[in-house]
């Protein structure tokens, strides 16, 4: 057929460039409203600021979760790790999760902040802070947010292992391979 075009063969070399979408100088990137604050940052997390944001005269409960980086995976020593993201899509997904769980559990305010780039062991890679009238919805809401973020948000962890002397390329982790207890899940 005349309209059938040939496969998308680049005319010359496809132009490949260092991606500017992850240039640290373009961060932090934030999406927020009166009651929701979502951010991707390269600097260490400013936890007190997130608690200040979620504090509310209507809230009697404030729940904060901090995810910190571990020095091991499956008993193997991790020498360093870093996070990358699809920033515009991750912000959109994080906001949608925050908004949905906020409605579902009647949360007053929600903060989700994720760090990008290299994160030293013991430092925070993610903070989830929520406030609610009473504690039950706060606990449940914060947990649901975290689980949905880990399943969905377009953010990737790469780990380098000390026992290979970093000669190997870093390994991209996939959250669906481990459960909330850190146990490995047999995937299909």
């Amino acid at each position, binding site marked *: 057929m005349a309209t059938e075009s040939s496969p*998308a063969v680049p005319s010359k070399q496809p132009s490949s460039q260092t991606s*500017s979408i992850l240039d640290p100088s373009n961060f932090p990137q934030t999406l927020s409203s009166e009651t929701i604050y979502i951010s991707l940052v390269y600097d260490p997390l400013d936890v007190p600021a997130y608690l200040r944001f979620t504090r509310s005269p209507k809230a009697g409960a404030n729940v904060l979760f901090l995810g910190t980086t571990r020095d091991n995976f499956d008993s193997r020593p991790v020498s360093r790790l870093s996070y990358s993201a699809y920033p515009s899509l*991750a912000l959109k997904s994080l906001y949608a999760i925050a908004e949905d769980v906020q409605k579902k559990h009647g949360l007053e305010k929600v903060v989700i902040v994720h760090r990008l780039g290299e994160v030293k062991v013991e430092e925070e890679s993610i903070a989830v802070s929520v406030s609610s009238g009473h504690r039950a919805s706060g606990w449940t809401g914060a947990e649901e947010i975290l689980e949905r973020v880990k399943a969905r*948000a377009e953010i990737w962890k790469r780990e380098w292992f000390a026992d290979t002397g970093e000669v190997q390329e870093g390994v*991209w982790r996939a*959250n669906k391979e481990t459960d909330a207890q850190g146990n490995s899940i047999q995937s299909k």
Partner: protein
Amino acid sequence: MGMGKDTFTLLLFASASTYTGAETLTLPAPSSLRQIFTTLERMYPGFVDKVLKSAAVTVNLEYLDIELDGLDPASTDPGSTTGLDMLIKPGDEVGIIPPVSSG
């Protein structure tokens, strides 16, 4: 960003990026997904099996509802994986999204 009149931007993340050694590719548009995947497989042999089959695809920040785990780029059967005839337009931003690992 390269928003040419006859190209689209392909963003490669995580394993898609390390496998190809590229984070951003500017490719001709319009192109069907089938053409794009065929091109990627030709440029980076093994890409379909090692990366694409476990990945999702977004176009302008929206996920496509297509199953890639049965993908065979060599197949000429147009019905083998539905949705592959979708046309990517000039200026579109397409993302290859491997399994995520935030937190």
